[in-house]
């Protein structure tokens, strides 16, 4: 499939911005683990341990900028995929809730985030393949 100069430019900009924010997140995460954890409890320690969220917020900003640069059709496809991914996640997590009642191990709520990412990815992939 041909990639236009525009798509290449947008893709590179997104990768650069998201990559930069992930790098900031990684550096702050290492610093928080290395220096924040051994600190005495207090406001400073809390701030230190929360500092990786600066990188996370930069990542959100990069995603928002990317969505803003997309054309109207691609933005619609993305938003529909996220909506369907969220619906799929709701179905999967509800199902697992019943399974927990049946004795399956309790999972952390953090797992929902990963299921959402996976579901959105699967929905996007299926839609892309169907449009070829």
């Amino acid at each position, binding site marked *: *499939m*041909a*990639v*236009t*100069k*525009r*798509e290449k430019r947008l893709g590179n900009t997104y990768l650069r911005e998201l990559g930069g924010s992930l790098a900031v997140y990684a550096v702050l995460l290492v610093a928080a683990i290395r220096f924040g954890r051994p600190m005495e409890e207090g406001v400073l320690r809390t701030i230190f341990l929360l500092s990786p969220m600066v990188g996370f917020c930069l990542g959100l900003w990069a995603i928002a900028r990317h969505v803003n640069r*997309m*054309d*109207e*059709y*691609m933005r*619609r*496809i993305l938003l529909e995929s996220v909506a369907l991914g969220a619906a799929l996640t709701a179905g999967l997590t509800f199902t697992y809730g019943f399974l927990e009642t049946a004795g399956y191990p309790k999972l952390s709520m953090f797992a929902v985030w990963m299921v959402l990412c996976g579901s959105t990815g699967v929905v996007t992939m299926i839609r892309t393949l169907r*449009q070829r």
Partner: protein
Amino acid sequence: MKNRIRELRAEHGWSQADLAEKLDVSRQSVNAIETGRYDPSLPLAFAISRLFGLPVEAIFTPDQETA
């Protein structure tokens, strides 16, 4: 909504990627519009009309005339 974009693009000898560059949209958008899977917004429809030098109604026609 039906449209004549594929035909007009062929007349100009442009690929979908060429048209996408000229309209500043993705190639997938051009493909979706050409195949009738997506109806463009008014600003994009006017940009297409300007590019081909034709009025919007000469490029896009509704599937059924509404009252």
